[in-house]
């Protein structure tokens, strides 16, 4: 499937090209189908302009703060050895995998008006905290993205050759000199890409903006799309907004590609480099680690405690059925993501640099697509031919898979390129081709990243509550939808229990797929 060192076999090119075309059709046909539909609203109203402005402001703030806080956190993790350090680094993977609806419950328990800090503030005679609005949206985004950026930086620190730190120790460099001469050059290379990634992820914020935005003041473009579809039922207006959102994403990507390429995801093990430059006083680093870990762990802790109480009270009968549907859906959709990403990555890894970058940029812009517009568009397209209910799970699975594809590509393209660069010639010289080559000379080398990409896609799909609401027949509920329906039936305790099950299953799926790849991982 995946061909030679410098060239791509015809089969790889064909398969990759077909998959790429299918993905592009899936993304753009729905916009086109809605474009010509009913709707007499303004082409681009003043409310839309406000939405664009708010979207840009919150993305900018979220990305800046995530990156700024991640630097001291990652630095402390990479120069201090302490008990539980590996656990902290493993924990960094969790928030990003967290279903948004679950994370919001946890964040409210800590930062809400009757949350932990409000109580402390009240006890001290202060006011209640109010996080609704820009502050809350940015807080939640930092919660999701701070650990992501920290992981990327930990990888950056790991990639610094250990001799650098030895040299610094031998030359007697202090912490400042080590930062200027060793760490800053790495950060300068890694930070812009990490910033871009977070910016793009926050650009399409929907659930967070709806829950914590506090009202129409905090409307992102994706929220505006939702309201347009719901209230005005102006399909062509929704299509226009979807294009505006895509345009914003594309502009940011083009702007940024000049400066930096987004950092690729990796599964850094967080091996601590041996170093001698850490200041003797460990207080500041310890404070940074404690505060950061507290910020990440407290909301999770509340979800777990509340959920355990909810489950203890006795789960509803539909819970396990919904969990089963979700696991099957997430697993299948993750496999589709993995296969599609593999096919496209096979094509990209063999392309000349310029064209490869173009495909990569397109993959990033996909982060700015609107699941609502895609879902509605697919519905409009399919409706005359098939019963959308009968295809609810298939459509949801495919759209979820497409939404995870950018992540899959970011992980697999570098892995395939490295495998090809290091062992492609060897495989060529041995005359390895076709399936045998893929099985023996490619798959073992990319197994780790492949497992990681699949696990990530599974967890993201597991927590998704978007497309399914448009299609789901009453007897088919995914776990997030089931949890939402429980909340709609006054059953908050059971909903908290369902949230815990959702959290556990998301992490378990990620872990299992990671294990499938990791146990046999070979270093490339």
């Amino acid at each position, binding site marked *: 499937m995946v061909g030679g060192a410098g060239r791509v076999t015809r089969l790889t090119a064909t398969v990759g090209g077909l998959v790429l075309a299918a993905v592009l059709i899936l993304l753009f046909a729905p916009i086109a189908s809605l474009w010509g539909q009913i709707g007499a609203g303004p082409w681009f109203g003043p409310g839309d302009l406000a939405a664009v402005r708010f979207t840009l402001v919150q993305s900018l703030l979220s990305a800046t703060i995530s990156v700024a806080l991640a630097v001291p956190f990652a630095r402390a993790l990479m120069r201090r050895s302490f008990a539980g350090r590996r656990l902290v680094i493993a924990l960094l993977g969790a928030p990003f995998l967290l279903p948004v609806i679950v994370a919001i419950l946890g964040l409210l328990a800590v930062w809400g008006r009757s949350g932990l800090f409000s109580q402390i503030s009240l006890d001290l005679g202060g006011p209640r905290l109010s996080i609704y609005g820009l502050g809350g949206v940015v807080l939640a985004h930092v919660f999701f993205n701070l650990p992501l950026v920290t992981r990327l930086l930990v990888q950056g620190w790991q990639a610094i050759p250990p*001799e650098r730190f*030895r*040299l610094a120790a*031998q030359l007697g460099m*202090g912490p400042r*000199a080590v930062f200027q*001469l060793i760490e800053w050059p790495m950060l300068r290379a890694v930070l812009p890409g990490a910033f871009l990634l977070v910016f793009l992820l926050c650009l399409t914020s929907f659930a967070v903006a709806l829950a914590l935005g506090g009202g129409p003041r905090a409307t992102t473009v994706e929220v505006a799309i939702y309201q347009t579809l719901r209230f005005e039922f102006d399909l062509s207006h929704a299509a226009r907004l979807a294009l505006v959102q895509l345009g914003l994403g594309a502009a940011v990507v083009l702007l940024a590609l000049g400066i930096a390429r987004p950092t690729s995801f990796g599964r850094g093990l967080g091996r601590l480099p041996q170093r*001698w430059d850490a200041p003797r006083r460990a207080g500041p680093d310890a404070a940074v680690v404690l505060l950061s870990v507290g910020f990440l762990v407290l909301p999770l802790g509340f979800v777990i405690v509340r959920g355990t109480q909810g489950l203890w009270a006795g789960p509803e009968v539909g819970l396990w059925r919904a969990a089963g549907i979700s696991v099957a859906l997430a697993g299948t959709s993750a496999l589709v993501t993995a296969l599609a990403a593999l096919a496209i990555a096979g094509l990209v890894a063999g392309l000349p640099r310029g064209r490869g970058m173009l495909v990569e940029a397109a993959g990033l812009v996909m982060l700015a697509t609107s699941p609502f517009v895609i879902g509605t568009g697919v519905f409009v397209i399919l409706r005359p031919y098939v019963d959308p209910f009968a295809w609810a799970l298939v459509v949801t699975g495919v759209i979820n898979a497409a939404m995870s594809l950018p992540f899959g590509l970011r992980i697999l393209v570098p892995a395939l390129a490295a495998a090809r660069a290091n062992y492609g010639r060897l495989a060529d010289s041995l005359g390895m081709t076709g399936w045998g080559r893929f099985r023996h000379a490619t798959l073992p080398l990319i197994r780790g990243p492949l497992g990681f990409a699949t696990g990530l896609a599974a967890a993201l799909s597991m927590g998704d509550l978007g497309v399914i609401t448009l299609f789901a027949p009453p007897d088919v509920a995914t776990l997030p939808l089931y949890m939402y329906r429980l909340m709609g039936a006054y059953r908050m305790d059971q909903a908290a229990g369902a949230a815990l099950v959702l959290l556990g299953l998301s992490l378990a799926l990620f872990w299992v797929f990671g294990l499938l790849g990791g146990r046999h991982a070979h270093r490339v």
Partner: protein
Amino acid sequence: MHIAFERVRLAREGFTLQADVSVEPGTSVAVIGPSGAGKSTLLSLVAGFDRPDAGRILIGGQDMARVRPADRPVTLLFQDNNLFPHLTVFQNVALGRAPNLRLDQADRAACSSVLARVDLAGHANKRPAELSGGQQSRAALARALLRAKPVLLLDEPFAALGPALRRDMLDLVAEIRAERDMTLMMVTHDPEDARRIAGQVIFVQAGHVEPPRDTAAVFNSPTPGMAAYLGI
């Protein structure tokens, strides 16, 4: 300067390094042995990047247990990554004088002088990537000269160079060592290197460190383990 390993033990994955040997002041010692035997670890112990589980390391009669790498009378050149890619050759060398790169007139003069000594006077403002492999090695050596520490440790720093270039580098090392009366320990794979500049050889195998012997004697009547390694 005298270097002594007193009943040193260090457990590592795959082997336990044991050393109870000493190196006389002003000598050149080649450390040879199979891959993974513990040669680099031996140098690391002297430089202070590793610490022994048991035993002591003395340099010039002083116990090194509590001395940080920067404060040891030692310069170690690595196989790779001796130079920062984003700094100029001049800055890389100057780090040997002032790790924060705040240089006064005297510092600059000293840097220029050692650069001239290794024939890199015209390359001061280039980045390492613009230099050839041999030139990179000489830049690293210039910094070692500038630091003027009495012990010089080389961990196969010239392994990537061609035979002629490597001979030149070894000769340069020998000259500099003699000028400053340094004690030299050099890890190498090639008996030729040892014959060229080292008066003595330490053989390391599976963590066991043999005491230094005269180079000529070693190659004429090797110990059984060494004979096997050399294929004699």
